[in-house]
């Protein structure tokens, strides 16, 4: 028996206004997994991610960390928006997690530069966020999440607001980084194609209250080249996932 990194047992979240956002969530994320949460808008995906990150507390059930709760910096989080500090440049923004951890600017420089290198922004360290494109801002956000070398990366529809060309490229980059880094990823999306292309496992969620309708293993080879998106296997799996998603939404 391997031990999962994090396990959710019968987790529920009801907001103070009485809205039941999540109910009866059971899930496990193993070390090195790439898990996607796929579901329509409003089915509680962001809420679930916040519960895992410890940014919100469940109103029922438990979020368990078999090897102890993660220390600050062990979880990287990319929000739906880039969420950058407009008063800092790219370097300041990526440096922030290390700064909070008490590292000096000089000592942190190599780590920040390495993170910027990973996302292809090495030449933009001193650009202000308002001078960057939407895709580049998202990359800064990703670099910030990676700079502490987290064991778990939580991504909340990070590419949802981007055009398809940029999104495909960032998906490819993300897969490459995941292949090299060996970290664990929980990825939230409402795109079937994105979920299937990226994940080892897709959890399909349904609404009102949010719950996990089905879990599907994605049987695709492990380095996944961009051409995979044209292949028959990929298309077939996407069709199956779409059907399951339709069921999840219809059963409410």
């Amino acid at each position: 028996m391997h031990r999962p990194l994090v396990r959710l047992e019968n987790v529920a979240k009801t907001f103070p206004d009485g809205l039941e956002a999540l109910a009866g969530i059971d899930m496990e994320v193993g070390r090195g997994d790439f898990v996607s949460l796929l579901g329509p808008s409003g089915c509680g995906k962001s809420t679930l991610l916040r519960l895992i990150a410890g940014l919100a507390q469940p109103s029922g059930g438990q979020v368990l960390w078999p090897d102890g709760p993660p220390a600050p910096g062990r979880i990287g989080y990319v929000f739906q928006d880039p969420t950058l500090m407009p008063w800092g440049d790219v370097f300041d923004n990526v440096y922030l997690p290390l700064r909070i951890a008490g590292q000096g600017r000089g000592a942190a420089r190599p780590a920040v530069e390495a993170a910027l290198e990973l996302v292809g922004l090495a030449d933009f360290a001193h650009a202000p966020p308002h001078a960057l494109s939407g895709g580049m801002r998202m990359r800064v956000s990703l670099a910030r999440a990676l700079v502490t070398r987290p064991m778990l990366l939580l991504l909340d529809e990070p590419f949802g607001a981007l055009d398809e060309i940029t999104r495909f490229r960032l998906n490819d980059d993300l897969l490459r980084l995941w292949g090299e880094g060996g970290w664990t990823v929980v990825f939230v999306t409402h795109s079937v194609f994105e979920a299937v292309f990226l994940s080892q496992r897709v959890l399909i969620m349904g609404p009102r209250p949010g719950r996990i309708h089905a879990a599907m293993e994605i049987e695709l080879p492990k380095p996944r080249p961009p051409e995979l998106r044209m292949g028959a296997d990929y298309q077939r799996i996407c069709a199956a996932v779409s059907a399951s998603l339709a069921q999840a939404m219809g059963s409410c």
Partner: protein
Amino acid sequence: MLTRTAWLGRLAPALLGLLVVAGWEALVRFNDIPSYVLPGPLAVAETLWREGPGLLAALLVTLRVTLAALLVAALTGVLLAALMAQSAWIERSLMPYAVFLQVTPIVAIAPLIIIYVEQPFLALLACAWIVAFFPLVANTAAGLRSADRGLQDLFRLYGAGRLQRLRLLLWPSALPHFLAGLRISGGLALIGAVVAEFVAGTGGSETGIAFRILEAGYRLQVPKMFAGLVLLAITGIGIYGALAWFSRLLLRRWHESALPPRS
């Protein structure tokens, strides 16, 4: 380079001012209005030139009170706002008193302050401070609350302490609001200093510009009153301009209000 329309945009107000001044001078001359009733602009200018050194020295006294009050108001305003940001309870307990200071007319409080604070400079400073204080507290407090929710989550995720949050997140978020408050308070501090001088009468050995205006009034030196008024107006505009410049300087790298328009 300024374009034609930009030049016209700058020229138009200057032209209007010139017309008004010329009209005023003509009115005074053709109707033979004596200068103790309404002096013409030339008479005012002449007085300004003759009385310049004395008036400027007086202006400096008022300016010193104004700037000191603004500085103290900025420091206490930020301090109090930071305190309020610590808990809703602190904010709820303090805010009514800040509002109380704001809504009570300074003309009504000034005589009391001048009785209780013996040192004249401090008494004037206290009056100007009361007027300048509120926009700084209210704006800074609102600014401290305006920090982006996503960034707040981020700071929580990385286990930031109270001080780190205040210094790295809340304060930069509040800065544009604080500066907006400062621009308002700059003018208010000057008003507060002037009102206090009016109320204080002959305060100590050094007298400020407002007291000079009052004194000139007693002696029916109307042109001198106008000269003092002109100096005060220029000073007010100068303070506003300096604070606006300072604000742009601090925000020009990032804040929407100070970024150049997209071209």
